[in-house]
């Protein structure tokens, strides 16, 4: 499974079973469905994949940040859009 297929799977899973909101899931799925547009930015796509996999609404809570929150994902989506 390549990084785009894994991203699609992770986004779907986090949207349906986790707390990933639709306003992040939709643009993340757009990336997953457009490998031809993002294949030169695989590092950012991998970063987005890890952030989606480890998404946690409460990532900023507590003493240590172990997960990613909506701001992290939104920022990476912005970088991907800029790099496209």
């Amino acid at each position: 499974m390549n990084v785009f297929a894994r991203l699609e799977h992770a986004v779907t899973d986090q949207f349906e079973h986790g707390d990933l909101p639709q306003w992040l899931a939709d643009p993340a799925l757009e990336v997953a469905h457009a490998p031809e547009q993002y294949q030169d930015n695989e590092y950012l796509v991998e970063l987005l994949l890890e952030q989606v996999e480890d998404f946690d609404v409460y990532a900023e809570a507590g003493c240590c940040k172990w997960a990613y929150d909506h701001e992290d994902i939104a920022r990476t989506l912005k970088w991907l859009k800029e790099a496209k």
Partner: protein
Amino acid sequence: MAVYLDCNATTPVEPSVVALVTRFTRDDFGNAASPIHDYGLFARAAVERARKQVGKLVGARPDEVIFTSGATESNNIALLGLMEHGVKTRRRHVITSSIEHKAVLEPIEHMHRHGFEVDIIPAGPDGRFRVEHLAQRLRPDTLLVSTMQVNNETGIRQPLDAVSQLLAGHEALWHVDAAQGYGKELEELRNPRLDMLSISGHKIFAPKGIGALIVRKRDGSFPALQPLVYGGGQEQGLRAGTLPVPLIVGLGEAAKLALREQPERHATCVAFREEVCAILAKLDAEQNGTEEYTLPHCINISFPGITSAQAIKALKDVVAVSSTSACTSHTQASSHVLHAMGLPASRVESSLRLSWCHMTPQVDWDGVGAILRNLR
């Protein structure tokens, strides 16, 4: 150009690692400690991603990964960083083995000069330190046990499982110098009893100058380490200094590849080993240490009647090999590891270390054989 067979000294760098290091040097050069603009935010995101990648290989959480300049610095923090705690708690006994790298033995000598009692456990001709001696030396006031995972000169895997069983229920901290095994032997480093692990980037196809100390929490607390360098509070206060983002990203990528490609790399090294062993058998080489415990990418052998220096010089246009640790080879001193294993001086002085990797090209083994036969 000779084929490089000295991968235990340093490995070539993976092309995708080179690409990322270049990118984060040339284009995305932000400071991870300046997350006030996109340059800094991207650098911070890249560092935190690398931290996860490095920790994932050994089942450590990201906050347990402290980036350093390499395993030598990691070893120094793990050992010297505990001195103050040892003095305060009156636990000033340390155990290590006679076959450790100088990056462990020399800090421990420093501890000894400052009032710590040190026990150095011996090794056998099989190349492994003797766990039964460790059991005899362990005391209620033992602060730290420091053992390597894989020996750098022989490639021999050390008995970490036995040490883990021995230390179960004991308060002593356990540090493992995993410079030669991290990214190659994955499972045993996931043992939760391991308190501290030292790793090095340039042994796993990342650049030199980057490594990590992985420090596991026990009962919710980190070991009471003190930093050796002050000024900035980076890396949870344990390692001050601006983070070298390109090198950290390179180490993360190398860790990712090590996890993903481990089975293929292992198989390639095993196949290469079969060729190496076939030619060495024809040359009557004597293996130093036991084959059963040796990782597939390394072998230490002696050629009776041929000194290491003669062999290295004669082979230099065909293969690049070494006779001892890269960190001590410049001193011309013979191997303290092979001596500690009880090998006779003649055998130590005729030892060679061959170490390869999944990127090693084919070798003209017939040419190697002819050169060595001519030396006899």
